[in-house]
């Protein structure tokens, strides 16, 4: 599994290549050995992959945010104990015990990072994107968050306070972004369409009504 395999895999391996990379061969060997030893079930592996490809994703978090925007009692419950509040919504991948929701306001912008590895609220956002797990984000988010936001085209007022939450334990964080203007009377389903994955990490903002019109 030499490091140089990565580019090859990244660009060419989509399941129908003729030549197997060293990484593919090693992963296949690992799976075969663990299966033959009786530790894992290949049919369960298929279902795990299917779950993360089709069922668990940022649409779960978007529903949470849209509900918080619509229902003040739910919003209070979410900010008080996000694990308990989200558990009442019956997601596909049930949330664990350690979710914390942090609220953006006109004065305060929150951002989530894991500088030590890749901790991320899978149950509500799905698997983290590559950039979230990569050195540029992990190194800079805690020191130069405005620079990180500039990389992705977000400019906050210079007076806005920024709070970065480094996920160094098993606590997981989700940002509750601000509800966009011009959405009075919208249903939760319609509001959920405005909630982007990155707005729940704090590296983006929700869409405006014009963007989904």
């Amino acid at each position: 599994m030499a490091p140089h395999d990565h580019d090859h895999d990244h660009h060419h391996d989509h399941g129908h290549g003729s030549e197997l990379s060293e990484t593919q061969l090693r992963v296949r060997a690992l799976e075969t050995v663990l299966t033959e030893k009786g530790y894992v079930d290949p049919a369960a592996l298929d279902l795990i992959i299917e779950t993360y490809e089709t069922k668990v994703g940022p649409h779960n978090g978007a529903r949470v945010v849209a509900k918080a925007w619509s229902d003040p009692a739910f919003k209070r419950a979410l900010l008080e104990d996000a694990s308990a509040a989200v558990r009442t919504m019956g997601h596909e991948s049930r949330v664990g015990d350690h979710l914390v929701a942090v609220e953006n306001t006109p004065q305060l912008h929150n951002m989530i990072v894991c500088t030590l590895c890749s901790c991320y609220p899978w149950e509500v956002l799905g698997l983290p994107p590559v950039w979230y797990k990569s050195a540029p984000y992990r190194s800079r988010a805690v020191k130069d968050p405005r620079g990180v936001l500039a990389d992705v085209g977000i400019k906050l007022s210079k007076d806005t306070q920024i709070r970065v939450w480094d996920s160094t334990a098993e606590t997981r964080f989700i940002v509750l972004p601000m509800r966009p203007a011009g959405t009075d009377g919208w249903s939760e389903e319609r509001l959920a369409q405005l909630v982007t994955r990155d707005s729940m990490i704090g590296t983006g903002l929700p869409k405006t009504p014009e963007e989904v019109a």
Partner: protein
Amino acid sequence: MDGVHDMGGMDGFGKVEPEPNEPPFHARWEGRVLALQRSMGYAGAWHIDNSRAAQELLPPPVYLTASYYQRWALAMERNVIERGLAGPDELAAGHALRPGKPLKRKLTPEIIKEGLTRGSFYRQAQAPARFKPGDRVRTRNIHPPTHTRLPRYARGRVGTVELVHGCHAFPDAVATDRGDDPQWLYTVVFESRELWGADADPTLKVSIDAFEPYLDPA
């Protein structure tokens, strides 16, 4: 350990580059690696902190150039071998040459939903919490050669306890097979200048989640 995985505050890694319409997996084997990891975790083969520790032990050039799921696979090979769950000869042969060891349980299709539910890290408190919200604390200046979750940029710094998360399994102990050693967990917030000096962005505050053994009263 003071490894390259502890990236907070390092310079020179370049811009953050999002990928439009990124798929969950970029190759089929990445999904297999994730599913193997989840299955072995469910089976009780090792704890998530053992997985993190095994990645941290990769040589720095490998850590920095391997892809994310390559790191997972390398760490899994290491844990499989170290825990005697398979031999290097078997991984090289691509087949089991001896029977497996008994594990706690097995993730099967019928129980996939329960199997993917995130476990709880709460543990029974061994003593009352030493700190409460509003307390000023100084993080310890520790450099254990083994796994720790106190990042370098936040060692020896004064901050304020903001949240108390209850008592959790302590990664530093778990990763070195010393049991759960339950410890209180706190969110501790720091002013940017305490972390990054006089030139830091004055609008920034950064928090970490810190276990009680990382903290002294300030």
